């Protein structure tokens, strides 16, 4: 066997720098560089989609992307996040006044920008993060004997974002294994994605009421169901329980509660 495959195939590679991306898109890259990039694209959806996005739009990565200095002006940062070099010794009173003024401006900007009272669907849009499929790779392979083939097929559809197909197959799998926790959980998530909130609540509720590994996460996604349905008060009550329990998703829950 050629040793090249063994050496190269699972070699960890870094994401593309701005310059590498530009060179790859323009075709002005060394052969070695091109191979490294193309091997990396097989493992990294972020870089892979970035390359495809630029190629499909015919945009070979323009130079005028916003640099950090311009971007940072849009942030309303409290003074302690500012760079150290902005503080010079001497004139402490003047600095204190400047810092106080920045704090006031920052706080006003923060509350006007981030802290608007949002309705349920807007909070959902801001805080909802699709659950990344965490079913082990081997379990997704429908040749694995212990895995319900319906489940394997459904999890693939879920991973590909085909939630209509996924929820339909998960429900078939549930007919065979009605209390299978992972199936109930992903069936709930698929229905949440496709906006069938009654079913989503039913499946996620069963998981949240159990003691399995997805129970806490299901509680979080029940909050998402409430927000999507515009039931902000119900969501708040569930959030308070998650925060009180102080376990999985408690930080996210606090952050969302602050936004309410």
């Amino acid at each position, binding site marked *: 066997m*050629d040793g*090249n*495959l*063994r*050496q190269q*195939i*699972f070699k*960890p*590679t870094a*994401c*593309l720098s*701005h310059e590498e*991306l530009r060179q790859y898109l323009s075709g002005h890259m060394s*052969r070695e560089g*091109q191979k490294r990039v*193309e091997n990396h694209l*097989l*493992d*990294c*959806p*972020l870089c*892979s*989609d*970035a*390359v*495809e*996005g*630029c190629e*499909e*739009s015919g*945009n070979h*990565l*323009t130079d005028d992307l*916003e640099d*950090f200095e311009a*971007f*940072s002006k849009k*942030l309303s940062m*409290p003074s302690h*996040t500012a*760079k*150290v*070099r902005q*503080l010079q*010794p001497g004139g402490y009173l003047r600095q204190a006044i400047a810092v106080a003024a920045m704090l006031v401006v920052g706080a006003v900007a923060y509350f006007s920008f981030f802290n608007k009272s949002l309705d349920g669907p807007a909070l959902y*849009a801001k805080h*909802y*993060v*699709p659950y*990344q*499929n965490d079913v082990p*790779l*081997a379990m997704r*392979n429908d040749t694995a004997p212990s895995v319900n083939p319906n489940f394997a097929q459904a999890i693939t559809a879920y991973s*590909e*974002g*085909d939630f209509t197909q996924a929820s339909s197959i998960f429900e078939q799998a549930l007919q065979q294994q009605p209390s299978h926790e992972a199936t109930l959980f992903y069936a709930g998530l698929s229905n949440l994605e496709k906006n069938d909130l009654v079913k989503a609540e039913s499946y996620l509720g069963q998981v949240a009421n159990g003691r399995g590994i997805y129970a806490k996460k299901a509680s979080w996604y029940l909050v998402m169901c409430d927000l999507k349905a515009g039931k902000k008060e119900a969501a708040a009550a569930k959030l308070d329980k998650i925060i009180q329990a102080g376990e999985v998703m408690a*930080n*996210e829950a606090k*952050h969302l509660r602050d936004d309410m």
Partner: protein
Amino acid sequence: MSIRFLNKQPDVRQLSDEELVSRFAATQQQTYFEELYRRYMHLAYGVCLKLMKNEDESRDVVSDVFKILFTKLPTADVKSFKAYLYTVSRNECIAKLRQKKSDMEKLAKYNHLENSPDDFMENDGFAALFNTNPSMEQEVERAVAQLGDEQQTCVRMFFYDDKSYREIATETGYTEKQVKSYLQNGKRNLRILLEKEMRKHTA
């Protein structure tokens, strides 16, 4: 003397993404966030371009994405920054498309656009195990032989013959996109097969 000289700043370029995230969360110092922005802003922009298909909208979404990260990173449980960035970028694009009824067509095409696997294949741990396990030498060839025809052809041409996507496409008649897809799925399947073998050897 400037205060700057009294504060020895680490060379942020030497820090891993996850170190940058944890230091940013702990200190709120902008320097750490700036390095993450420098490493990934162009990639997030490319991801947004893929979904939004509009340069100006993509710039706006990327800006929003990094604003969200700036706010959320200190409290989020981030195991892989790039996976987190990828998720937030896609969500923001979808949220923007949902807001615009005129873009429902784009939104409907989202599944099609997202047909590439969304799992990040973290090779570090696996490569370390794999490359130090001499019994895997023969297993690689066996695993390659188990792949479907298209995947096997592309894997052999890419890894054995050192050909690029374009060269493989020219020789096989597949499109470059198909070549990439066969390679992505082939590599993923190889890993599944080899992981099974490694489990057998270590059992």
